[in-house]
């Protein structure tokens, strides 16, 4: 058992660190460019240096090499630590690109991948619909082939940053008579197509990260289909095999816990910092048990995946989501208690945005304690997760009503 990353990874870590120091933040005239252009340049250089998108072939704009889960973790940690803009259009780089590599035509690969990796081309994902949340197979948006075009009608929801994206990849029902999963196709949709209307969906905390997208006879070239007609469901799941390289490193949970400790130091309780209160200490210590459990579960997953022993960590993989949801709820409840009066005002727009906060301010915690409600929902409601654990890990009977 060894919790250090070891010498070879230490070398990689230092290389990445040096790269970051050399290239971020930008200097000279590059510092004058708009932030988005700065970020695109940074990502271009990181790809050239073999740091980002290491397994995407060179001919499509990647670094074209090998990688492993530990290397990816080390690289991500360093890119995060230096606050570099390495995450561009995550939907694009982590969902669309693997899908195109797997199922796209040569022309699609050539057209889209390179620009997506740098962030020149920004994508949004069109899967969820108002009537199809956990039950994605019941989606209703349709695409009808009319000569050389798909004609799109319907509505998508929970589309992150749809108002900023250039393109959407989405699932549309092309064979209306087919049942459920069958009859769905995977289409690429330029967002400036006439008949498409993206509206920001304001969130409970004032955040504006999500959109609804409405399609009213929007016409998209017939060639914009990935994989075969009616097989969109399968195509959309072809990214799953890439996800094993993307295990979260739980450092987010630890950073958030450290932020909670800071809040407990700032907050007053009976004339002293709340962190001196025996009850608050107990609750913090209890939460740390969950946070540390997550950290070690991730360490175990990284190890097993690195050794190609994924089967050993099925439990961890299937439980990760719900564990993190539960911990988030505990954190949110204690934060709300510690916030006191701060819980009576709205978070700032910056703190209401999703993503990793640069600082754990009181306003961040107000936002967080509301947004943790969403973690029980996003990416599969907690009840669905419990079904999965019950059925796949414990071997319990499947719900009779499904499908």
């Amino acid at each position, binding site marked *: 058992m060894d919790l250090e990353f070891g010498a070879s990874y230490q070398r990689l870590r230092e290389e990445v660190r040096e790269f970051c120091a050399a290239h971020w933040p930008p200097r000279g005239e590059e510092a004058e460019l708009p932030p988005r252009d700065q970020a695109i340049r940074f990502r271009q250089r990181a790809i050239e240096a073999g740091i980002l998108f290491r397994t995407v072939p060179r001919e499509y704009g990647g670094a074209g090499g090998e990688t492993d889960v530990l290397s990816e973790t080390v690289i991500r940690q360093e890119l995060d630590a230096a606050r570099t803009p390495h995450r561009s259009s995550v939907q694009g780089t982590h969902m669309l690109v693997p899908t195109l590599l797997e199922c796209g035509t040569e022309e699609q690969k050539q057209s889209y991948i390179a620009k997506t990796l740098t962030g020149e081309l920004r994508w949004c994902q069109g899967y969820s619909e108002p009537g199809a*949340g956990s039950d994605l197979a*019941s989606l209703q948006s349709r695409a009808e082939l009319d000569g050389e075009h798909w004609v799109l009608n319907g509505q998508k929801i929970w589309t992150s940053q749809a108002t900023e994206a250039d393109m959407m990849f989405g699932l549309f029902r092309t064979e209306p008579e087919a049942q459920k999963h069958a009859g769905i196709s995977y289409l690429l949709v330029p967002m400036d197509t006439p008949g498409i209307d993206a509206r920001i969906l304001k969130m409970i905390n004032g955040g504006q990260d999500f959109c609804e997208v409405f399609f009213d006879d929007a016409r998209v070239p017939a060639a914009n289909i990935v994989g075969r007609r009616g097989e969109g469901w399968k195509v959309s799941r072809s990214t799953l095999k890439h996800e094993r390289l993307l295990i979260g490193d739980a450092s987010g949970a630890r950073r958030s816990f450290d932020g909670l400790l800071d809040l407990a130091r700032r907050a007053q309780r009976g004339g002293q910092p709340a962190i001196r209160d025996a009850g608050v200490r107990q609750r913090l210590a209890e939460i740390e048990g969950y946070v540390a459990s997550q950290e070690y579960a991730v360490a175990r997953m990284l190890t097993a995946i690195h050794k190609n022993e994924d089967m050993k960590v099925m439990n961890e993989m299937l439980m990760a989501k719900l564990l993190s949801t539960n911990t988030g709820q505990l954190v949110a409840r204690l934060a709300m208690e510690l916030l*006191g009066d701060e819980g*009576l005002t709205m978070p700032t727009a910056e703190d209401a945005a999703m993503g990793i906060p640069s600082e754990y301010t009181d306003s961040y915690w107000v936002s967080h304690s509301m947004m943790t409600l969403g973690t029980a929902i996003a990416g599969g409601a907690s009840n669905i997760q419990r079904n999965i654990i019950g059925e796949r890990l414990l071997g319990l009977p499947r719900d009779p009503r499904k499908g």
Partner: protein
Amino acid sequence: MDFSLSEEQELLQDTVRSYTANECPPPRVREVFDGESGHDADLWKGLVEMGLAGLAVPEAHGGAGLGLLDSALVCEVLGAGAVPAPFLGHTLAVLALRLGGSAPQQERWLPALASGDRLGTVALGEAGGAWAPEEWTLSLQGERADGAKTRVPAGPEAGLVVVGGAGGALGLVDASAGGLRWSAEDSLDRGRRLYALELEEVPIETLAPGTGARVRDAALVLLAADAFGAGTRLVRMAVDYAQARQQFGQPIAAFQAVKHQLANMALDIDPTRGLFWYAAHAFDHLPEESARAAALAKAHITDRAMQVARDAIEIHGGIGMTWECDAQIWFKRALFDRQWAGTPDTHRARLADLGGW
């Protein structure tokens, strides 16, 4: 023994419920919530005409002379409807005068409060979450006051402000006399907006000593009642949504897991009703139990209501997280009730002390 509401009390609730349901249904609640001021003058006028402004004012001064339980029952209905009305601050101002005002003070102010000619409010909290009377620092020595208070309801709409000061004293400020500087706080519950208040050389009259703690206790009871109303409504909203929302070919309410979550929500909030009834009753009739019963009601009910609010959002799924879903309005109502005047932990610590533990 009779632990129940009188017919008059049930009638009071029915009347307020049906009036607010007609005049302030959810679309109107949302309009005010999203509006500029968060204040609905017409609605308040209607409630004043029903006698709510004078509910706690003695009959001699033009009010209905009712007890705290009656005001709490109104709060329950207002919380259930997320009604944007300044009832909480106004009622607390009335109580401050009733409990601590001299005869001339009562004579001067109570009729105007009862008739709704003046809107009352209370400025109790100070920066850093100082809600306990013994933590207040604003000086009420002399005839003029200087200092700052936070989280004041109604703000510039108010014509009379009851201000908490050092030693737990209360002072009366006539807002029309000038010298009050209000600044809007970016309130989470936009149906009950809050303001910071700065006083600069403002003329002030003090009320009888000890009134601060009593008014704080009354606030706790009213908040608990409001949270009870909001919590029960959130259960209803979650039930209705779960009945309507189809997934996997059936309403999600038919999934046993969802059904049990809903049952647990009902079980969380419904049995807490007696806590605020009793605390309100004790406030008027059992003075030695009053402070502790108020702390218990506030701590327990607002915590349970907040849990119900979280669960209700979860039942609504993603849509519950959006501004356009009504659940967020009631969620914030419950959150206000929980955070204003001190969090549950604060009051649990107090009730442990008061119990001699």
